[in-house]
């Protein structure tokens, strides 16, 4: 491990001027990430931010770390190559809903099943921002945009459900303005060994303003957010007056009056288990009606070996078995002579 260093948020700010639209939700995510990284004291140069294309993908330019702004949808593939070649680095992917889920869907799927130790920040604003307002794969069905004047005909992707289906080992959701929860989730994601997907509901105040208003304001958050906590009952509401009962993979809300252990027990409110796949899926698929709760926080977290560790282990085994020399010349001679040879004099 590297020696911890004393850092401030400003150490993570690059010299480049941040060029997102005023009021963009990306600002708060950037600030939260800079603050969090300063708090863990890992040297600046150990972090690499890899992004694709889109508003959110400018993120690396604003971080005073190593960074690579790449091509549309391919950040996971580039990050995977980097992480496998350099397991010692802390690798982050910053991406948007179009980048990760549309053009990059295939790479996203395969990254999750391989489980490299990469942290993915998915800034989901349910719209194409940089190309000026077309519907995205997470836009709601019927969404009227420049490219869908009659409403989007597509069923939206549910990123959490998709990630769970692709065998992700860490899946979480937060909202851009909830700095406290975002920091907590960043911390859990960072310490998780494996791919961590953090879906961040992010407001695009230019092309899709208010997409998350139902749960974004302080009041609304208090009312509708359900913060998932391991070993804690599924309760929500301003005064925790509601609870969820999960039966047969389906969640049902009930009024319990108060978050006392008695009422929780009385109504049979489900206790959350972050390692329980079915519970995670039930939380991911709660139909989003006007009065439904929106689960936030860590949905799912399990351990599975990372691809870079498996590959490193294979290399180590092969080397141990072969007992190779440290000299390139010896190794090459051994390689060149590893089959039938003959000599001509």
């Amino acid at each position: 491990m590297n020696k911890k260093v004393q850092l401030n948020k400003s150490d993570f700010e690059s010299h480049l001027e941040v060029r997102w639209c005023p009021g963009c939700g990306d600002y708060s995510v950037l600030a939260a990430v800079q603050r969090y990284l300063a708090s863990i004291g890992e040297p600046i140069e150990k972090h690499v931010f890899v992004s694709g294309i889109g508003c959110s993908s400018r993120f690396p330019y604003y971080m005073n770390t190593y960074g690579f702004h790449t091509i549309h949808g391919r950040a996971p593939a580039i990050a995977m190559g980097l992480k496998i070649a350099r397991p010692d680095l802390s690798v982050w992917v910053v991406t948007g809903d179009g980048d990760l889920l549309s053009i990059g869907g295939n790479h996203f799927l395969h990254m999750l099943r391989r489980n490299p130790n990469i942290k993915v920040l998915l800034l989901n604003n349910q719209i194409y921002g940089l190309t000026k307002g077309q519907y995205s794969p997470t836009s709601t069905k019927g969404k009227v945009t420049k490219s869908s004047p009659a409403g989007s005909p597509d069923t939206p992707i549910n990123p959490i459900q998709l990630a769970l289906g692709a065998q992700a080992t860490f899946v979480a959701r937060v909202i851009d303005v909830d700095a406290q929860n975002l920091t907590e989730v960043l911390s859990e994601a960072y310490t998780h060994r494996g791919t961590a997907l953090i879906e961040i509901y992010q407001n695009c105040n230019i092309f899709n303003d208010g997409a998350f208003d139902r749960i974004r304001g302080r009041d609304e958050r208090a009312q509708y957010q359900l913060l998932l906590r391991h070993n804690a009952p599924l309760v929500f509401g301003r005064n925790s007056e509601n609870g969820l009962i999960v039966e047969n993979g389906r969640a049902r809300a009930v009024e319990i009056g108060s978050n006392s252990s008695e009422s929780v027990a009385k109504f049979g409110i489900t206790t959350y288990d972050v390692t329980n796949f079915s519970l995670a899926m039930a939380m991911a698929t709660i139909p989003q009606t006007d009065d439904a709760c929106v689960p936030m926080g860590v949905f799912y977290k399990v351990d599975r070996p990372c691809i870079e560790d498996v590959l490193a282990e294979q290399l180590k085994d092969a080397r141990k078995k072969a007992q190779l020399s440290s000299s390139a010349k010896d190794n090459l001679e051994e390689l060149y002579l590893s089959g039938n040879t003959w000599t001509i004099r």
Partner: protein
Amino acid sequence: MEGNKKRPIRQEQLASVVIRFAGDSGDGIQLTGSQFTDESALVGNDVVTLPNFPAEIRAPAGTIAGVSGFQIHFSSSDIYSPGDRPDVLVALNPAALKLNLKDLKLGGILILNEDAFTPKALSRVGFANNPCQDEKLLSSYRTFVVPITQLTKEALVESGLSAREVERCKNFFVLGLTLWLFGRPTDMTSKWIETKFKNKSELASANAKVLQAGYSYAEATEIFDVSYCVPPAPLEPGRYRNLSGSALTAYGLVSAAQKSGLPLFFASYPITPASELLHELARFKKYGVITFQAEDEIAAMCAIIGASYGGALALTCCSGPGFSLKAEALGLAVMAELPLVVVNVQRAGPSTGLPTKTEQSDLLQAIYGRHGEAPLCVLAASSPSNSFKMAYEACRIATKYMTPVILLSDGYIAMGSEPWKIADPDELSLFEVAFTEVNNNPGGRFLAYKRDEATLARPWVKAGTKDLAHRIGGLEKENETGDVSYDANNHHLMCQLRAEKINRIAQEIPPLSVEGPSDAELLLLGWGGTEGILREALKVCQANKLPVARLHLHYLNPLPSDLKEVLGRFKHILIPELNFGQLRTLIRDKYLVDARGLNRLTGEIFKVEEVVRAVQEML
């Protein structure tokens, strides 16, 4: 082997022989051919091979579409081509005969598996009469009709193997028969069988038995009244191994990693005929080689960009359609100025084309196939042995100039094999990589795009290096700082600098050496896998006193700086290519010379005789 010799068999000495094995794609033809090749190489012959198989794993048995072939040219002199026409054809079924007979030299040896010539099999490929009983056929060639399947069954009557397994051993009968015909012992192949089937002892002993049966049959029945001997070739002294182009490419890449001390990261997606390179490298974990089988060609290309950013020697391979998919990411690599190597084992296109056949039609895509002005270095290997050298060279240039390098190979080179004079690790060219570890702009911010004066390469910084953290990406860079820049003049300047950097690679290219008389009138100009054929063609031209010289290009972008002067020396320039004139287009464009082409797209390599004919027509 000390059989009951009834009468002495005449032994005849030949300078060189071309033999072609042909049968169904399940008959083990490739295995028979490659083992016969190894035997030939090990007795000291020079060898050149030409495997040829269908794209289907198992096309319907007995059809023309399912015929698999393997041609070997072995010789007592230096040879460079697999031979235009076989002297010996082994046809294991009527379809194989139908497809290949037209190539057999008149008076050549024809060996037929009598058992496969059933009425049904014959009618399937349109034979009205059984060739095994065709007097004309029997007299036009030295035909030997052998009940190969039956004899294999008899040899294995007590083996306990299933009928299907027994049938599949017949390729070893053929191998035994042909080994005897060319005066070779069987013990080396027997040993090889032991290793190859070491976990299937029943199959090992069955194959060894059938091999011996084929050999003894030839010896005891005296069906051949003569056996042939091809003396060893006077190859350059040294130690040799018989290896394919794919294997030698892999050896070149591993050598580059070992010599430079860089970890090798290879990502690719399986595609014929490039997959062999992935298979070869996947076996080299002990040398620190990481192979990553990506989810698609794009991901493979992207993964090596990431690995290169992390400081690895990063490589990928692909073929036709896969190469197209990599184009966008290659543009990013050009912009990011990161070193990496893409090996494109060309196949016949467009689209899926003829996936198992060879062609040279990706040259223009390699040079121009990206959006924007995105120049990079393009090299081409010309033979299996040369693949070793060019793979190493590609890695060296990529890291020295901080650029992607495309190495063009093709199906013919990658699948063919020849004796490789084993390299001396000490004699490989110097390959040192120095990562930048200190700020090149003391007191200021690190300049990620400040260039080396000689090469114009930017510094290579391993992500994670202290004090040098910086951001790169696909947006245009400001000169020196590498910051994002929309400045109009800066874009023009950066495009110029990137182009000039690639042009400077010309300083790495050794002076051209033209083969042939200095007063020749015609220059035979080639690139890639046609070199062997063109070399043989030159020999024929010289024997016929034609004023011809030959030049082969291994560096396609940039082109060698002395090429203009060389081209100016000749009245005629003939460029044979397995495409419609891609190098010709480049040469005409750059040098304004009236180069002519010999172009064919049949999925096959040129015949020496057709190149010679084209030369004659032009003179």
